[in-house]
């Protein structure tokens, strides 16, 4: 999978990396059990400190998206993917809330907002929109 990170974004690299990998899993571009580059290799290719990669991998591991083995290295989890929990729903609402609020302020209609969600859902499931 091609990971592309925006270096001018306000979002830190490790968060972007985490998000891109999750998107890869969602779209099916990254399959279960597929191996990811080692911390060192990825740090080398992105020309960043190894801590940055470690942080991203730790986040993904704690959420249950990847497994880090001593020998096999980093792989997309073979166990079940993390489920929608109460905590997750709460988080989700918390994150979407300000976005909806701002959209309302800017005069966006409910339908328009939902159609954007719809579009993105489709796009990600199809594996498009990598940039």
């Amino acid at each position, binding site marked *: 999978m091609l990971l592309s990170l925006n270096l001018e974004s306000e979002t830190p690299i490790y968060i972007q990396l985490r998000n891109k990998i999750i998107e890869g899993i969602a779209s099916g571009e990254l399959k279960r059990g597929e191996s990811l580059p080692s911390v060192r290799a990825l740090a*080398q290719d992105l020309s960043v400190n190894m801590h940055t990669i470690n942080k991203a991998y730790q986040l993904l591991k704690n959420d249950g998206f990847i497994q880090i083995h001593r020998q096999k290295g980093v792989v997309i989890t073979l166990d079940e993917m993390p489920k929608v929990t109460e905590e997750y729903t709460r988080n989700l609402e918390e994150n979407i809330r300000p976005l909806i609020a701002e959209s309302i302020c800017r005069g966006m209609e409910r339908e328009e907002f939902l159609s954007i969600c719809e579009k993105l859902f489709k796009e990600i499931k199809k594996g498009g929109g990598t940039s």
Partner: protein
Amino acid sequence: MSFLILLLIFIPLIIITSITPYITRKTESFGVLIPSNVYHNPILQKLRKQYLQLSIIVGVILVGVLLAISSLFNEETFYATFIISTFVYIFITFAIYLYFHKKMKQLKSTEKWFEKKRETIVVDTNFYKEKKVVSYLWFILPLIITISTGIWSIINYDQFPDRLPMQYNMSGEVTRYADKSIVAVLSLPFLQLFLTGLFMFINYVIAKSKQQIDPANPEESIEQNLIFRRRWSVYLIVSGTLLVAMFAVPQVSFIYEMNLTIMLSLIFAVVGITLLGALLITITTGQGGSRVKLGKTKDGDLINRDDDRYWKLGVFYFNPEDPAIWIEKRFGSGWTMNFARPQGWLIFIVIILIPIAIAIFTS
């Protein structure tokens, strides 16, 4: 003979140096990062042409000086001048490069090439799973030659002369002898072993060096880069085996008298093939595969990370944050190292020390 050396070593050096701006990636110009669509800008085309012309003129002048010396003085003077001229040429052309490097930096700060461009970095998570180099098993070839030379030398130990010629000048006279011993007899096989190890190590560097993808054109640049690595890896096996085989020739000549002209022609043939091969790959492939045409070139609004500040003078990579030790050159063909990494220096020193150790140990 002096004419041959000029033709085989100095001329390829001039050609490789002069065409350098034409074989770099399209995202770099004289050690400065640019958006790939600026590469064909008329100003940049003019700069490349000027660099080419200047480097050729300096080269032609030095060839003239060398030819004059070869006709006026003896061979010794010629070889001394030849070696000095080589360094002089590298030094002068580097100064010329620096002039253009500065000019590029000025251009970059005044022109609005980066407006609306977004700095992005693209990596392929499967890059290291691809087959980028030939199998290490191929190194069995030079290894067989090395071991055979070694065993042959031990079996025929009695027939070696009591004083072994260790160093020749270019006219084939011995300038240094060593007393016969097992170690002294094995000095050339040791050298062959070192070379085989060195080539295996370079093959490793080719496989492991940092992936550099043009975000404006990711698919094509990945494919180009794989072709680039594979071609150099194949070249390494062929030229490496030839060079190792070449070192068996003087070893055999210790016992079986060989015609000096034949021996020297053999050596020149190997050196010539090696250099011309490198020149050919450089021209057809370009740095990072940039000259391989796959017809998929795209042109987007994305550009690579601007890491100019880590490239001192545009050629020396110094980035303490980056764990990479080996990286593709910015101005030139091949690989260089991250000078901020001590491991790189260590390996570098070991590579220089081994042949010196062999020379001291065996004499």
